[in-house]
């Protein structure tokens, strides 16, 4: 080693701060490479509350679930926060929506975590949208059409029937990652699917009056819900996905009411209420806030309450 680098290292090592840093590095390395006997539970990092809840339903006490976001956050626009990187670091399974919903933050979080198990392509990386028949897959990819997703509309959780396929795949993935508990995951899924089947039947019965009801949506967040309950979307407040509507656009929507009257305007709870309220006042129709995910409304406490509350709020909107 030549003189200059010698000088560099001697004087660098002489610094007490540097020695302190080295000690800290050593301590963390020991802890990191040889962690204390790992807790049996599979560490799950879910990007949104609905997948956190699904993983919990299937995995029960065999999983420890962290949700990167809560119900009032726009899942498109999350910062790649240090807290998320820290959580992703120790995760064994990332459960994401996919279809580019989390493209603005998850890739950075996953890469920066230094966790090889959860990189895309590994068994520890799960995308729900891969197991669903996607709607609104764009024929043309051009930003002139706003923030479109190449894989189709990513808001698949608004149709509970999608949870059957996603849940089945998630149970299989958990079983692959944790073979000793494979039977527990299968049983967890079967139990969940049974309860969900009954609930879907009930929701569909309750929601029968909603079939064919014309609605306005603030963001194209509900095609799967519309498809499920037979709601008819006659207009979208955001002329381009992800771009806030201008007052001229809103005025156009109100004018359109005469020709194609909508019964209500719906928005996801995480969205600004101003545009849908504005429309509601001018068009004299109710503005309905849907939970969109768990925690979006106080009532939407779990996956079952999520659809309970969604149907209830839509029916209430219809009666107003």
């Amino acid at each position, binding site marked *: 080693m*030549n003189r*200059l*680098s010698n*000088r560099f290292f001697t004087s*660098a090592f002489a610094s007490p701060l540097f020695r302190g840093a080295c000690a800290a*590095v050593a301590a*963390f390395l020991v*802890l*990191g*490479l040889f962690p204390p006997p790992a807790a049996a539970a599979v560490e799950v990092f879910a990007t949104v509350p609905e997948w956190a809840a699904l993983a919990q339903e299937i995995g029960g006490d065999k999983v420890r679930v962290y949700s990167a976001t*809560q119900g*009032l*956050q*726009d899942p498109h*626009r999350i*910062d790649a*926060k*240090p*807290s998320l*990187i*820290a959580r992703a*670091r*120790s995760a064994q399974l990332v459960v994401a929506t996919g279809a580019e919903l989390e493209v*603005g*933050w998850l*890739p*950075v979080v996953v*890469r*920066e*975590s*230094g*966790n*090889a*198990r959860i*990189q*895309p*392509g*590994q068994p520890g990386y799960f995308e729900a949208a*891969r*197991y669903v*028949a*996607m709607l609104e897959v764009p024929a043309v990819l051009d*930003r002139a059409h*706003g*923030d479109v997703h190449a*894989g189709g509309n990513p808001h698949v959780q608004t149709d509970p*029937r*999608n949870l*059957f*396929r996603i849940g089945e795949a998630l149970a299989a993935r958990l079983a692959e990652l944790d073979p000793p508990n494979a039977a527990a995951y299968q049983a967890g899924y079967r139990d969940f699917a049974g309860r969900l*089947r*009954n609930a*879907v*039947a009930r929701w*569909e019965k309750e929601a029968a009056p909603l079939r064919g009801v014309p609605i306005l949506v603030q963001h194209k967040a509900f095609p799967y819900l519309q498809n499920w309950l037979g709601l008819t979307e006659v207009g979208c407040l955001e002329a381009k996905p*992800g*771009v*806030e509507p201008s007052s001229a656009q809103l005025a156009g929507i109100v004018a359109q009411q005469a020709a194609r009257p909508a019964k209500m305007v719906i928005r996801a709870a*995480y969205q*600004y209420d101003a545009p849908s309220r504005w429309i509601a006042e001018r068009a004299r129709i109710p503005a309905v806030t849907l939970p969109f995910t768990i925690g979006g409304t106080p009532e939407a406490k779990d996956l079952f309450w999520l659809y309970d509350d969604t149907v209830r709020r839509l029916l209430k909107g219809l009666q107003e």
Partner: protein
Amino acid sequence: MRTAVPTVRELAFAAALSVPLSIASPAHAAGPAKDTDLAQIRAQLQQMKDAYEQRIAALEQRLAQAESTAGQAARSAEASATQAQVAVQEASLRAAPPAAPAGPASGFNPEVSLILQGQYKSMKDVPERAITGFWPAGGHDHGADPRGFSLDHSELVMAANIDPWWRGQLMLGLQDDKAEVEEAWFQSLGIGHGIGLKAGRIRSGIGYLNEQHAHAWDFADAPLIYKAMFGEHGSYAQDGVQLKWVAPTETFVELGAELGRGAAFPGTDRNKNGSGSGALFAHFGGDVGANHSWRTGVSYLRTAAREREAHFTDVGGLEAQGAFAGNSRTWIADFVWKWAPNGNPKYQNFKLQGEWFQRREQGTLDCRDEDGVGNACAAGVLSDYASRQSGWYLQGVYQFTPNWRAGARYDRLDSGRRDFGVNAANLVVDSYRPSRATLMADYSWSEFSRLRLQFARDRSMQGITDNQVTLQYIMSLGAHGAHKF
């Protein structure tokens, strides 16, 4: 299925018409047709017509049967228990194959994005812009923005996963006469244990703003201290390797070390084996409640210089040249705090960030008279050189609607201790505290386009108060990767 019927019928008639035509034409060509021939043809046509009509009738009957069966099935399904219906739906959803389109080979192309940046800038006409009391990072060339309309460099970015173990990225800065490789590196994906390895030309992980490219800045220019410490690019980059480790803790702890060529200011390219620069950094971060998140860090950069040149003024007011050789050590403390109601930054958010720098340099100063103007160093004077200088900035940016943001920034530097040894008798040693106050407002049509207006009162040059107005645009095209926190 209903639409298929006319299609069948049309086809049948088209076929029926085309057959006699094709038979008739050669007959015409052969000369006037006999009556018996015509009768034969008519008979044939009649036969064919009958045959087709029979077939069509049979098809229509089968279709009607199918429709009625389907109708019955649908009615019976409706009549049956709704739970069974859900099971059917579930089965049909299951039967739908997951959309996994097999893309063409071009699907493996890297994510490509282009950043277009340009500005209009109004400021004082100062021939040699340099921050008073600090060694000019650019040496002889003064790379400040031009006045009036100008194009910043355009950035071309290409990035992709290389294989399951590595990811690569290239970032080119394009200007009129050159394309500069700003970053070109590969990064590990498969090491695990929280370890990240990056190698190539990298922006160092020191400080907070250092890794961010100009298009991600909240102001049109870099903080003064970044310009003073690292030059006009406002960032320290080098060719080398970076090793990072994220601790398995709920609080974010990231430790990193870098070794590299160290060719960039404050070091110089020194044509040697081994490394010319080393950096250490530690970052910590986390959330406080749903609304607040933070990151803080300390960093250390050590590099060395040979023949690092700058202009000086001698005690008689004549120009002199000085060359530094020695070591340069820089300490950085940084923090950033972000607020967003319910952690949802789309509509409203606030970001407060600040960084403090201290640099110590030790070595020799070779004072010269390269242009033969007869300055105090005409014979060449070699002296000791030592300096301890510091500076900081603090900035806040508030996004108050999805489209509008406003921000303020204050920069303050201290030329600190500058010991020129015996050359203190030959050269003017400036002692000054440069400062700058900046206000900005920007409008974003979407995440991909931004227009910014900025006012700055720049007192970085002693005796000059420069009021600067900048109107800047930043446009992002293509698949641009997510930004860091």
